[in-house]
Each structure stands twice: as structure tokens, then as C-alpha cells.
């Protein structure tokens, strides 16, 4: 097998704040291969966006401590200089952000914002760059692209802005596209269009993607592999089928149980995960999920390692002390996967 395009090992990001140190990302590791779509899921504040932004060095700041390794091709990005990173940003790895309403600069024309990126990396004339921008806008489905390139972001609808962001991200034909909740701020129908577009790019260009989302519906549609994050750690990782049909971590059960699925019997009430996600300033001891987990026992006060517990060599790992056979019994609640069905 070809070596992975991107290799993340034991990535740790801490932010020093006035209230204490926030361990936003705590030992995250994963590989991304050519043409693969990796989904990182989890609740707000679990560190998925920080993970994604750290790959491009966007979290660098005087109060951030970043450790671990991010290898892209032969380059180590964690220790790379700002200048080296600058060459990678946009050109090798591009990013699409959550809120297309605020991610484009309101005072520049959309076409010029795309052109700006092209000009920052290659020696072409402004005219050629603008033609390229128009071509890209057309490719992502902006009607009348020539005219619309001269419009300002506020003249675009939300879906069009996200398309423009994607066009911008694609402008230098990057190898990896990092999409940080690309469809969260959009209407459901527009969401579907944007996902379709991303899927198409993945299929036609072999573009590897890291998709950050808290929407399991999105994951089910596009992902090859899934990482489930909770409070800065990966709690489960595996292929889409493994995570969706044989989930190992009780947190994953909770996430899946709270999803309405047409391929499963209709439940009286959706399962919910009781309690609140922990404060990142005061994380629980041991397994971070243990205070909310109905199946916890003594061992949960120790941190479980992320290993393949169910089938060795499968690549499906989790961070839970429970025995895989015991888990299979526990997680079936009323024919559904779920953590707890609240009493009606």
C-alpha cells in the first residue's frame, strides 16, 4: 500500500488561558490516504476544529503549545517555519470553513479573493488568474460565473458563498481538502448540494478530504473512515461500516442512538446522552466520558488506550475498557443502538 499522504501522530494542542490550561487536543493520531475521506465527528468543543486547523498551523499563537507530529509528504509541519507552511497552505492543503457568511472578506470581490490565492502561489498574470477563478466558479456550479466573479460576497447566497469558498480551496489543485463543518450553516437542501459537490471532487479528482462535522448524516454519506472525538481525544476510529454498524465506544452508541435512521426500527423516543460535555479546563479523571457513561466501572478511572479491542488487525480501535462481547449485549436497547432510552 502506498504510504499515507498525511500522517498525524500524537498531536497535542494546549492553550494557556487565564483560567488555566486547555487541552484542546490530546494525543490525536491518524493517517489520511490518497483519495480517502476521513470524517472527524464529535460534539462542539471536542477539539475537532482545533485538530483540523492545527494541521495547517492556523492555531499557532503565543499562548498555544503544539506537540506531536504532522507529516505531509516528507515534511514535518509542526516544526515547519511560517514561510514553509505558507507554501503548503492553499497549494497542498486547502481549507473550507464552517460559516461562509463570515469566511469571505466583505470588501473584496469574490473573484478577486480567489485570484489573490492564485497570485500568492504562482507567477501568472492577474488576467490569467481571474480567468482561472471564473473557470473554478463555473466548475463548482455558480451560474453566470463571469459576471458573478465581479460580485461582492454579500451579493451571494449562503450556498453560493460556500461554493465560492470551495472554488477558492480548489484553485491550486491541492492534494488534501480540509472541510470544517462545510454544510452546518446552510439550509438542508443546500447542504445536500454542497456535499454532492464535495463527493464529486473526491471521486473525480481523487482529492483526499478531512471532513469535520457533528452531523452523522453527513458522515454516512461521504466518509470512508470515521474518527469519533470526545473531549480532545479520539474515542473510536474505524471504517464507516465498522463505526456505524459495530460501534465499540458507549459515546459512539450515544451519538448513533440520537440519530433517526430509516434503516432501523422507529424508536418511541430518541436516545440521549445524559449530562453535559466536560469543561476543557477540568477534565474528568481516567476515561473522559466516564461521568456520563451508564456502564462505567472501577477501571474507567484509568485512561484506556486506543487499541483494536474487537478484532485485531482490523484497524477498528476504541478507548473503552468494556469487553467487546459484553458491549454487544449492552448496546442493543429496544432493537436500536443507543446509550439509554429515556423513560417515556
Amino acid at each position: 500500500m502506498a504510504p499515507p499522504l498525511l500522517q498525524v501522530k500524537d498531536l497535542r494542542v494546549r492553550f494557556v488561558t487565564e483560567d488555566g490550561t486547555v487541552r484542546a487536543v490530546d494525543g490525536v493520531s491518524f493517517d489520511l490516504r490518497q483519495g480517502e475521506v476521513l470524517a472527524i465527528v464529535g460534539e462542539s468543543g471536542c477539539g475537532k476544529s482545533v485538530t483540523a486547523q492545527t494541521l495547517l498551523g492556523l492555531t499557532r499563537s503565543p499562548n498555544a503549545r503544539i506537540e506531536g507530529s504532522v507529516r505531509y509528504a516528507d515534511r514535518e509541519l509542526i516544526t515547519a517555519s511560517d514561510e514553509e507552511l505558507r507554501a503548503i497552505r492553499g497549494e497542498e492543503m486547502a481549507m473550507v470553513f464552517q460559516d461562509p457568511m463570515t469566511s469571505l472578506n466583505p470588501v473584496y470581490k469574490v473573484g478577486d479573493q480567489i485570484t489573490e490565492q492564485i497570485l500568492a502561489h504562482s507567477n501568472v498574470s492577474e488576467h490569467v488568474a481571474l480567468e482561472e477563478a471564473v473557470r473554478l466558479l463555473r466548475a463548482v456550479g455558480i451560474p453566470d460565473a463571469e459576471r458573478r466573479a465581479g460580485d461582492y460576497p454579500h451579493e451571494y447566497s449562503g450556498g453560493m458563498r460556500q461554493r465560492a469558498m470551495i472554488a477558492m480551496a480548489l484553485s491550486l489543485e491541492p492534494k488534501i481538502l480540509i472541510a470544517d463543518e462545510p454544510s452546518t450553516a446552510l439550509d438542508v437542501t443546500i447542504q445536500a448540494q454542497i456535499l454532492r459537490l464535495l463527493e464529486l471532487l473526491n471521486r473525480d479528482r481523487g482529492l483526499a478530504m478531512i471532513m469535520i462535522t457533528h452531523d452523522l448524516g453527513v458522515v454516512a454519506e461521504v466518509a470512508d473512515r470515521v474518527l469519533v472525538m470526545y473531549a480532545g481525544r479520539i474515542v473510536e476510529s474505524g471504517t464507516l461500516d465498522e463505526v456505524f454498524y459495530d460501534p465499540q465506544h458507549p459515546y459512539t452508541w450515544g451519538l448513533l442512538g440520537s440519530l433517526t435512521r430509516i434503516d432501523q426500527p422507529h424508536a418511541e423516543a430518541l436516545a440521549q446522552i445524559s449530562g453535559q460535555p466536560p469543561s476543557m479546563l477540568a477534565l474528568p479523571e481516567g476515561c473522559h466520558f466516564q461521568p456520563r457513561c451508564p456502564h462505567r466501572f472501577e477501571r474507567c478511572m484509568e485512561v484506556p488506550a486506543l487499541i483494536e479491542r474487537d478484532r485485531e488487525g482490523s484497524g477498528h480501535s476504541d478507548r473503552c475498557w468494556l469487553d467487546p462481547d459484553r458491549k454487544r449485549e449492552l448496546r442493543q436497547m429496544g432493537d436500536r443502538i443507543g446509550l439509554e432510552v429515556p423513560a417515556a
Partner: protein
Amino acid sequence: MIAVLFAISVIVFVIFNVIPNSDPALRIAGKNADAQLIENVNEEWGFNDPLPVQYATMMKKVFTGDLKSYQSQLNVDEQILDGIPVTLSLCIGAAVIWMSFAILFGYLSAVKAGRFTDRSLTILALIGISMPVFWLAAMLLYYLSFKVTLFPTGDYVSLAESPLDWAYHLILPWFTLAVLFIGFYSRVLRSNMLDSMNEDYVRTARAKGLSERQVRIRHVLRNSLIPIVTLFGLDFGAVVGGGAILTETVYNLQGVGAYAGEAIGTLDLPPLMAVTMFGAFFIVFFNTLVDILYAYLDPRIRLA
């Protein structure tokens, strides 16, 4: 705009007529005037007319250029016109200086936020804001023109006469007038820039692989300048319209401000009225100009 000017002129007129010891007839008639003379003056100048009529007459004169000072009996509009080149020279020069330094200092302060450069600039800005103009002007004059004769002690040389002398004579007044604004604007710009740095589009700009400089200038600074332009429109209008009274007086520049200062000293209504109208006109005028400029700076408010 007309409504604003009308309201301002009425207010000035009313204030002037209610403050004590402002009876213009007494002043025109002179120190030892008897009752008959004062009555004659009142009659001749129309001071016996009801106030609204007096107001109407005065406004008519302002716009036809017939208004005469109670004090010197000189034509007010001509006096103001004479002062305009001086005032404009002072204000435009000062404005160039204050905008350049404010943008430079504000930018540096924001980029180096929290560090030595930022703290020093903060202190400088606060000193600049706190220093009274007349004190600063006197100090500069004393040390730079009197003790060390680097600069002339004032006076005005017209641009047409000698551009070099013009600038040489105006350097101190320019800086005196600019200091307050440099301090104020650089603080505003600094905080605007720090706010903008957290905007999503700045993160996008970084993710595009732009250099830090490009990100700061094209994305952060560009968006932070919009509120500065608003301030500038107001302040520039105010100084052109006679707001530079202190600077003009101390440096003996016979501009609109100095003229207004004199008129205040002698409670001379017509010049005050005209200067106020003139100032109000400029403030409104520059505000309108800024609104137009705004559309260029911020496409979101452009009309379709």
C-alpha cells in the same frame, strides 16, 4: 443638510441674544455714547426689530455677502474668504500628518500588541491626547523657535509666494494640530485591528497561504480603516470650519479659526454667525463626502 445648517444658525443666534452684556448697540456706539446715540444705532442696525426679523436679515446678509462686523465694521464674508487659504493650508497639512502617523502607529501597535512597541505607542498616544493644544504649541515655540531657532515663530507665507517657506512656517502648527488626532486615531485603529484579526475571513486569508504582511494589510488593516474614515470626515470638517482656533491663535496664523477667536473675545455676532455657518457647512459637507467614500470602502452599503 439645509435643516442642519438652519438649526445651528438659530441656536447660535438665540444664544447670542440671551447672554448678558452682549448688546451690540452699546459696542458700536462706543464708550461714552449717550442714550440718543445708542437709540440711533439701534435704529440704523435694526436692533429694534423683533428677533425673527433680525435673524432673517442677518441670514440674508450672510448669503449675499453684505454682513458687516459690529466691531470692525469690515465685511465678514471677505474676512473669512481671506482666512480660508491659511486655514486650509494648516488643516490639509495637519490631516496628512495625522492620518499617516495614526495609521502607522495604530498598525504597529496592533501587530505588536502587548509588547514593548505597543506599550510605548500607547503611552505616547495618551500623552498626545492629554496635552492641551495651547500648552503644546507654546512649548514647541519656546524650545524649537526661541531657544533653538529651528523654526519660525509663526506667521504665514502663502504657497504661491514660496512653497518651501510655506511648509517651513507651517511645520510646527501642523504637528501641533495633528498630535491630538494621531493619539486618538491610532488608539481607535489599534482596537479595530485587534477586533478584525479574529474575523473568520482573516483566518481564511491565512489558510490561503498569504504572507502575514499581506494578511495584515489587505485584510485586517483594510477593514479596520472604515470607521477611521468616518472620524476623519467629522474632525476634518471641524478643523477646516474654524476648529483650529487655538493653533491658529498661538502661531499667529490669520485663518478662519483665529478670526472666530477674535470675534468671541469681542462678542461680535456677525463673524461668529458666519464662521459657525461656515464650520457647520464643512462638517456636513465632509460627512456627505465620507458617506460617498464609504460606498467605495464598504461595498455592502453600496446601492444596487
